[in-house]
């Protein structure tokens, strides 16, 4: 497999589902919404528990799950709030069933305690956060990308890494959900699918394979039944998750713990536990790289965007090329761990994201060789239009800065 640096020079998509799509030939072609794709992807991956609370724009996932899960012998739980939802998912996963919840920003912040509990106890599970504009409830039916950092720092206390993926089409949402479940099993950690109101609600062409049992790329649930339950001080992948309910004697808690799982208050234990939680992800970054690029080999200005926003931004890059500008495009699909290597090229970057405070742009500034060449085009409540992104790219290429455009924020402080 090509290293990340060399692959970035070509156009194309780096993701495991490129191969999966080629192999899956038997299936149905539907016109469906992103929420449907996210649900079917989870069922295909073996998800058998959904515990959550309805919230726009993720509510349809709850409704689809309430219909689908009983059909496959799974359980739909509508909990009293999102805290309960995520804790119930963690309990179900601990008991041996793959579990998922889906929410939006207001619910995601309520899940932080539970997220941390699942993280520290290495419990696999998938959380969909369909972002909308904020802060707080904001505009209920409008897209946003304000949880970029929240998804990385999704619990308190530090000493952890997170895995966050973001799809930009309905078809991609289907495959990416299977990928998220696979990663959560292999890395023994919750995985966030950070999507937005547009990907969730829009209807697009969707191919769904007929026979989910025949999908040999789904990582099945296995269990670890012997001590040590937490291989502290190691960064190994593919350690099977623990299981509560078969009398293995495992302890699962909120505290810094020993290999057996009970609480301990020693520096040595804190170091060893953190070593595992951080390095099991950092040492395997190559396994986590998913992204899309266009025209990077000769680009003088590169547009960066993710999620639904990347759709119009990519079109803008093509339009800019058509007008003679050497424009390039980077769409990170893995948001965390952040793919620093994609930004090694010394050129101008125009970061388009659906927030005004500037989040993705700060990571690009950190990763790029010259942060003075990183420009911000923030917008909220609507996707960037092709015209304004083209204007931004041309402005940077010709005058080194983004021109004044209505409702486009360019300051990063």
């Amino acid at each position: 497999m090509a290293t990340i640096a060399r692959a970035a020079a070509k156009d194309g998509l780096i993701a495991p589902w490129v191969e999966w799509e080629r192999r899956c030939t038997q299936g149905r072609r539907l016109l469906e919404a992103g929420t449907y794709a996210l649900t079917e992807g989870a069922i295909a991956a073996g998800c058998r528990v959904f515990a959550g609370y309805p919230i726009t724009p993720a509510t349809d996932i709850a409704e689809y799950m309430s219909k689908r899960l009983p059909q496959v012998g799974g359980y739909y739980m509508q909990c009293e709030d999102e805290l309960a939802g995520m804790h119930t998912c963690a309990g179900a996963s601990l008991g041996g069933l793959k579990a998922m919840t889906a929410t939006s920003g207001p619910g995601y912040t309520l899940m932080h305690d539970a997220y941390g509990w699942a993280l520290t106890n290495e419990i696999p599970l998938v959380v969909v956060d369909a972002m909308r504009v904020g802060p707080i409830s904001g505009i209920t039916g409008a897209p946003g990308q304000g949880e970029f950092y929240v998804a990385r720092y999704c619990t308190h206390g530090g000493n952890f890494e997170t895995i966050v993926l973001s799809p930009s089409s309905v078809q991609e949402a289907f495959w990416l959900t299977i990928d998220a479940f696979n990663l959560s099993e292999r890395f023994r950690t919750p995985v966030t699918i950070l999507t937005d109101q547009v990907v969730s609600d829009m209807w697009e062409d969707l191919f769904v394979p007929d026979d989910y049992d025949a999908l040999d790329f789904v990582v099945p649930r296995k269990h670890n039944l012997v001590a040590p339950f937490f291989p502290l001080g190691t960064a190994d992948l593919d350690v099977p998750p623990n299981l509560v309910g078969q009398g293995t004697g495992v302890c699962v808690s909120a505290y810094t713990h020993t290999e057996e799982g009970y609480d301990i208050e020693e520096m040595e234990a804190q170091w060893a536990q953190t070593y595992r939680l951080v390095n099991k992800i950092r040492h395997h970054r190559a396994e986590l790289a998913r992204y899309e690029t266009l025209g990077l080999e000769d680009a003088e200005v590169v547009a960066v965007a993710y999620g639904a926003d990347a759709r119009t931004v990519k079109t803008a890059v093509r339009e800019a090329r058509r007008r003679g500008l050497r424009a390039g495009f980077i769409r990170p699909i893995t948001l965390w761990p952040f793919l620093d290597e994609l930004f090694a090229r010394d050129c101008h970057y125009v970061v388009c994201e659906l927030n005004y405070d500037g989040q993705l742009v700060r990571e690009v500034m950190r990763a790029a060789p010259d942060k003075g060449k990183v420009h911000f085009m923030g917008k909220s409540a609507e996707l960037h239009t092709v015209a304004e992104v083209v204007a931004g790219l041309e402005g940077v290429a010709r005058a080194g800065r983004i021109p004044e455009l209505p409702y486009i924020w360019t300051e990063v402080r």
Partner: protein
Amino acid sequence: MALFKLEKRAPKGPAGKWDVVVGEDMCKACGFCLNICPVDVFAWRTTANRLGWFPMYVAKEENCVGCMLCYQICPDFCIDVAVKTGSRIDSPTVGRGGAPTPNMKIGG
């Protein structure tokens, strides 16, 4: 514990037929067993245990009438009381970080 001692009517068997064991290394010297025993089986040690408490010990086992009040009231799982069978009760005391958990399989 005046009212408690006055009113607690636990069934009592004949004295002298009971084995009583106190896990002195686990005792936190709350004094409940000593206070509640109707026949003064227990007394305080004069040297401290590993935890730093002066624990209870079985001073007059022959007084025990098997009412089991001490067994029920001990907050630290220290006390065992049983009818004498000829062999003593085996009540191992283990400390934190000590013996492995029974029934737990250790992987390779």
